[in-house]
Structure formats: C-alpha cells, structure tokens
C-alpha cells in the first residue's frame, strides 16, 4: 500500500473492533462470541476465518500461535492483535462515516 492503510469493508471493521474488544484473549472462538454478543450477527465460521486471513494479508492484524491445548485436540489457538495499520484503517473508516453522517443526526439518532 502506497497511500496509507487499505480501505476496509464493514465486516472487516466489525472483526477488527471485536479483536480490540477481546484484548489479549483475541482468538477465533472468542472473537466470534464477541461478534455474536455485541453486533447480534451470527457470522458463518468460514466468513470469519477468511476475513481474518484477508486482514492478516493486508497487515491490518498480526497473529501468533499459543500453546497446544488438550481441549482443542492438541491444536494451538491463534491469537490476533490489531496492528498500527489496522488501527489507522479503523480510524479512517470511522472518520469517513462521521464525515458522511454530519448534518444527518436528526435522521440517524434514535427517536
């Protein structure tokens, strides 16, 4: 990317926010739970995984493997952290929404 962080879609925004919400414990199961609890969206498993892959490819998140766990059949959890680029992309996206929403508060606020 030459001109700053990439454009991100709504799903990617939600995933990035969910990772931030999870803090140090951000791995696939917890991210999915937070998404389900806070955004009331039941995301298909494959959709979450491919978004994470895409975000990592765009370097908006980074990941590391934890210890192998018996409860996962000897597999490790992959923990995600939002990178500086990821934070910047979130800010830009939010800024864009804010800019576009200005003057429409009457319409957009809850009645």
């Amino acid at each position: 990317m030459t001109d700053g962080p990439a454009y991100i879609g709504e799903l990617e925004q939600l995933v990035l926010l969910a990772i931030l919400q999870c803090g140090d414990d951000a791995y696939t199961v917890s991210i999915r739970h937070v998404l389900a609890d806070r955004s009331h969206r039941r995301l298909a498993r494959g959709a979450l995984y491919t978004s994470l892959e895409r975000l990592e490819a765009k370097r908006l998140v980074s990941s590391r493997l934890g210890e192998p766990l018996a409860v996962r059949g000897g597999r490790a959890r992959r923990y995600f952290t939002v990178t500086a680029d990821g934070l910047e992309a979130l800010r830009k996206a939010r800024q864009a929404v804010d800019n576009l929403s200005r003057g429409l508060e009457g319409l957009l606020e809850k009645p």
Partner: protein
Amino acid sequence: MTTPPRLPARIVGWAAARLSWGETACGDLAEEHALLTARRGRTWSAAWYWGQAALLVATVVGQFVIHASSAARTVLFIGDRPMTTLVKEIRVAARTLRRYPLITAAIVLTLALGLGVNAAAFSMLDALVLRPFSLPEVDRLAVVSEWSEDNSSPHDPEESVSPANFTDWRQQSRGFESLAAFGWWQVNFSGGDQPERVLGFRVSADFFRTLKLAPRLGRFIDETDTTNGPRKVVVIGFGVWQRRFAARPDIVGQNVKIDGEFYDVIGIAPEGFDFPSGSAVWGPLDAGPEALRERNNRYLTVIGRLADGRSRADASAEMNVIGDRLRREHPQDNERHSPLVQSFTAGMIDPGMDQILGMIQLGAILVLVIGGANIANLLLARGWDRRREIALRLAIGAGRARLLRQLLIESAVLAAIAVPVSLAFAWGSIRILKSAMPARILPFVPGWADMDIDGRLLLVISATALLASVLFSIFPALQASRPNVVNTLREGGRSVAGNRSGRVVRSALVVGQMAVAVPLLVATGFTGSAARQFALGPQGYDPEGIITMRTVLVDATHPDADARRRFAEQLIDGAARLPGVESAATTTFLPSDGSNATRELVVDGRPDAGQGRRPTAAYRAVSSRYFDTMRLPLLEGRAFGTGDTADSMPVAIVSQALANRLWPGESALGRRLQLPTTDDTRWITIVGVAGNIIDDWFSRRNGPMLYVPMPQRPTYLVNLVLRSGGDPTTLSGEVRSLLTSIDPSQPPIYIMTMKGMLHERTVGLQMIGAMMGVLGALAVVLAAIGLYSLMAYHVSQRRHEIGVRMALGASQGTVVRQTVWRAWWLASVGIVIGLVPAYLLTGVLRGILFNVVSIQPGHFGAIVLGLVGIAIVASLIPARQASKVDPAVALRSE
C-alpha cells in the same frame, strides 16, 4: 474433558484438509464442542457437532464448484469477445496442425478408425437392440411369457404361453390395458398368379388394438372373427398387396386361396408393418371354447399394452399374483411355470442378441482406447517438439489457461476432421454387413433394414469424438503447457532424453495398449473359432453335394396319410431319375433349417412317468434312402428299406445319444418304444442306431433323435434331399419343374444347397466372428504402431547417448538387443496385466457363444506369443536405426 464424536470428527478432519483455515476450524470446533457439552449435555453437543461437520462439507463442495466453474470459464472464454477469439484460435489451431502434416494425418486416421468401428457397432446396437421396432408408443408395450423352471437354456419368451393361461391372464389382469396373443401360421398363398409360401400369424382379437395400429384399408381382425372358432378371413400385408395385387383397393372384400381354402380379405395392414418380423398375412386365432381349454400346450406369444398410470413393475407384480393363483388352481399343468413380464424390445429380440452386440460395442470402444493411446503418444511427442514455442509464448506473457485452451482447440479441430472420415468408414461397413445378410433371413432380424447413418448416430459419434479427443489430449496438453521456461529457452531446443514424466507416461500408454489388446484378442479368437466350427466343423453327416427343397402339404389337397405318402413317393421317384442325382430321400425336418418337432417317449418295460415328465427326442419321419443320401453313418443294425411299409411292423432308428440315454451300456436293437402323444401308439421296434449329428448349432448338438420310416408316419412336411455327383446348384431348376409336374398348386418354400442352409443358419455368428476379427486386427495393428512409435522416439531421443556408448565400444548387436529388450519388456508387462481381465472374460464369452467353444490354454498361449512376436517385430526397425548411429555424427550434433 470430552472429545467430539468420532465419525463427524473424521468428516471434519477430511473437510479441514481441503480448506486453508481448516486446522483452526478443527481446533475451534473441538473447543466449542467441549464448552457446549459442559453447558447443555452430550446429546446436544453431539448434534451440534454433526451440524457443523455438515456445514464444513458443504463449504468444501461449494468451493470446489466455484473453483471448477471459474477454471472452465477461464479455459473456455478468454478475452472480451469470446466468439471472435474462438474463431481466431481455431485458425491458429488449423495452421499449427498443417505445420505437422504427418502427425496430424496419423492422428486423424487413428481417431477416424476408432470412431468408425464405434459408429458401425453403435448403428447395429441401436437398430437391433435399442429400438428395433418402430411401433406406436413401443415403450408402453410388454411381452408376457411363461417361464419354466426346467429350462436350462436362455429363456425365449416367444411361443411359451398356453391358450388357457392366456385367457385367464386377460380376464384377471388390470395392469394391462389389453393383452394379445399370436401363433405361427405359415401358409401356401395363392391368388394372383404363382402359389407362394408366406409367413403369417394367427392373432387374437386384441392384437392390432394393442399395437395401436389403424388399417390402411378395410378393417382388422376382431372378436367376431375369433370367438366361435376362427373365421376364414385374412389381413394382408402392404408388401404382398403391392406385389401380388398391384395395390388394387377392391381386393378388400374379395377372396384369396390360403392352404387350398378360400379366405375373405378384410383389410390391408399399414405400410412398413411386418410384426411379428417377416409377417405378410394375419388370420384370426382360434378363441373357441375348445381351443381355450388347452393349458399344457404352449405355443402362443403374448404381448400387452400397459394401462395408463401403470408401470411394468406394477404389471409384473400383478402377474406374479395371478401366476401363483393359476399354479394353485391347475397344479398339474402350471406347477413349474410362472409368468414373466419383459419390455417389448427385450422380449422380442433374439435371446443373447443384446449381449453379443454389447460385446462388439465394447470391443469397438477398446479399439478406440488403444488408438487413443497412440494419439496421446503422438501429442506428447509433438508437445515435446513444440516446447520451445510454448516456452516462448509463456515467457512473453501468455497464461497457462490460454495455452491449454489452444491445445484443446487443436484436439477439437482434429476430432472435427475425423468425424466425417469415420462416418464414411461406418457407412461402408454397414453396406458390407447389409449385403452379407441372406435375403431369406432378413425379415427375421427386426431392425436390420433400418441400420444406417442417421442424426442419432451423428450425435453420438460427434460427442464421442469430442470426448475422446479431449480425453486423449488433456494430459499431453497439461504436460506441454508446463515447460520449465528458463531451461527450455536456454537449451535452445536441443534434445536431452525427453523429460522423465513424459517418458514414463509414454511407456505406460504402450503397456496399457497391450493390456487392453489381450482381452479383445481373446474375444476375437473365441468368436472366430466358434464361427469356424459352425460353418466348417464336423456335422455328423456330409453336407457337400446336397440340394434340398422344402414344401408343405395342406389338408385341402392332401387330406390323408395315403395322399401324403403318395406325394412323397412320387417326388422321390422323380428326383432319383434326374440326371446327375446319386440318391434321393425325404425327411420332415432337415438339420439346421431352424425347425424341429419332438415327441415324448414311453420305454417298454419301464413305468410311464406321465405327460410332461417323459423322456423326449427330436422326431424325424424319413424315407428309406435318407441315411445314404445324407451320408449319415449307421453304427448298428440296419437302415430303413422298401420292406418298411405302412402295413409292416412299426420300426425306428435312434441316434447314439438317444440309445445311450435310454439304454446306457446296452444295445438298443430290438428294444421297443411308444409315442404316447401321437395318434398311433403301437409299440415301435428299434432296428438301427445312427451316428449323432449337429441338428442345430444353437440348441441341438449331438442330441437324442428318433427316426421313423416315412411310409409308416407320412406328414405334411416334406423336405426333399438330393445327393448329386457334381455341382448341386445346377439341379434347382429341374427340382422346381419336378414339383410343378407333380402338383402345380404346391409352392416350394425354398430350394437350396445343404451348405447354403448351414451358412444361413450360422451367418449371424459368422458376421460376429468377422466383426470381432476386424476389431482384433485393428487392436493388434494399433498396438504395434504404438510400440513402434515409442521405440522410434526413444531411439531418436537417445541418439547422443547411443553415440557415446558406441564410441565407448558397445557393438551394434548390443544396441539392437537393448532396444528390442526394452520393447519386449514393455509388451510383456502389458500382456501379463491383460491376462487377468482376459481370463475373467472367458466365462462370460462361453455363455454368449452358446457354450459351443471350450476355453483352451492353447488359445491364450497363441495370443500371448503372437503379441510378443508382434512387439519384437515392431521394435526391430527402430533398433536397427539405433545400431546405425554414427558415434562421430551423434556426438558432433550435440
């Protein structure tokens, strides 16, 4: 801690291996499963896990479909204007093919041959087995027959139903809209000029209604013609109406003479209708109360049209129930018989026809596969030659998909050229087959006349061509479109010894060709030897130099035994005086004429087993010189003589098979028999034992036969047999005039030589033998070409290496030996692999070929040796070329 259920866990593992995020998903599912088990219990979590496994599988399938369709799109439609691009690419393909004229010609010819045999085979299969009957809604028709537990030969549904059972079926069945029956009725037909023997059938009132036909003129047979015994009315076939009555419409309402009696013509059948095959006249079946009581005499063929909304399975289930009921009600006659419902086509074609034609089609497919291996080999070689061109195209930015598409388009163009050539080949083959079928047999092979090149065949062959060309070229195309760009360009197109995987594939193709050729050759060998045995094998008598004439007397002109005996005697006397005739005789049935009569026997001194359970024998009434004339040897006792007259003691001669069956280990002479189902039940004394004969290649080889003197039991069937010193065909005119001089109203059914009769009876098998022979020969030639081209290529690729070896002291002999050894080795591996299916095939073949030919290890040995020999010969030319490599030249050229 709980683990997920095992089976869905394996499914999850399988799916996960196919997804980039599969490993993570596996872990997550295990973790969430444990969590759910703790919260909601095992059952709930197991059900949830199953659901997740199913979702994962669906994801994998979905990804595959998306991937495949996008790949197909990439290969098929490149560029923003697909059609323009396609036309351009076809032009490029044509140009490329022209650049390799020899390879192109070889591929087109191989493909055309392979497709041609398939086209010819399919045309036969389609016309004779898939749709031999052009009748309205033929798929709603069925054949219902009585199947007997005692019958060991393949079930023949024709002439298997008794009138009483047919009547009960018709009354009780609801699965059929209508059921109709018919029985054989060959007649002497006069009306117009010459008397003529024509094939007809007596049909029940529902016959034409069941077939959904409308008469061309007049009406068809109905209940008024059948119920009170058959009325003397007749429906005439379109062909007879045209030929004998010049298509005069006023013939309806007039009468014609059939078997010496007058019949009213009530209708003309529609054009092209000749069912049952070869029929020219149809009369009413006897449906009078007397006839319908007959339950043990089975001579009717029954067809039915399924009722609306009923399937054949429904009708079959219902007929089984009716069959069970009839068995309980009439145990004496029906104990061992049950009704069988078959599709119309399956029931009406000759038993075994589908298997035989299936075998030929399979043989043709194998030839195509063997030829396909050659094509793949040629394309691989060409791909290797073109690798520099392809590497260059890849280097300047052509995508692999685009190259692949180009190579596939080249194959499609090859197929498009091969199809018309193959159809011409098939057209020629069909013409040859059609001309080989004797005209007398022709009407009895339903569909034969329709065998031709039609739209359906064109479609099937085009599709096969496309499929075959893509299939045979896909690997070479993949291989060619994947060169190592840098290396290839750097080499500058110099040859090293081919690339390794290409070499392995080429060798594997040749091994495969050999492996496929073995079972095909085994099938060819067996059909060939069966056909040879049918035509030329020992018959038990001497068919050489014999001419025969058949005629059938009718009650109107020869009402009693005396009249029939007088007729036969006059005929024999007249014939014996014809010039060149050595001896003359008559018989009721000739060997191999396709007809037969059997009689039940009661043996003197043994208990009578009762009707249907007694021993039986084929029954022939022959005149005194029959055995000399046929050169049928008498092993014991005497022949019939002039002393065996109507008034003398009843005597008989039995065949050796019958003597061995009834009196094993003892002499049959002087023993006595009775024919309980005939009018004359006096005891008959055995005076002679004759040798066994092949009475019919398909069903009565060396079987039990009973000969009685014609004067004691004269019948209406008269077959004159003449032995001539010279060419028997020269006598046919005189035999015809002899018959006319004795009785001008009596038509000869045929006049032909015994050799001709044998040929007609076995012509089908000989055609099959010839067709399999062609397929076998093609398979051998194609496999030999495959091996030859592989070895030639091998040598050309290794010139440098051979040069080095020879420079280091290898002799010419060593080089030849090494090349031939390699060919021998490849062929042997293929042959050994091919022996396994070939061995399995023998059992199937034996059944198909009427158990005539036994499987002998010698056959296998000959085929194996032949193939190995051909492999060695095919490799000799390349081997000699290899040995002539000049080391200096070979080394310099690198």
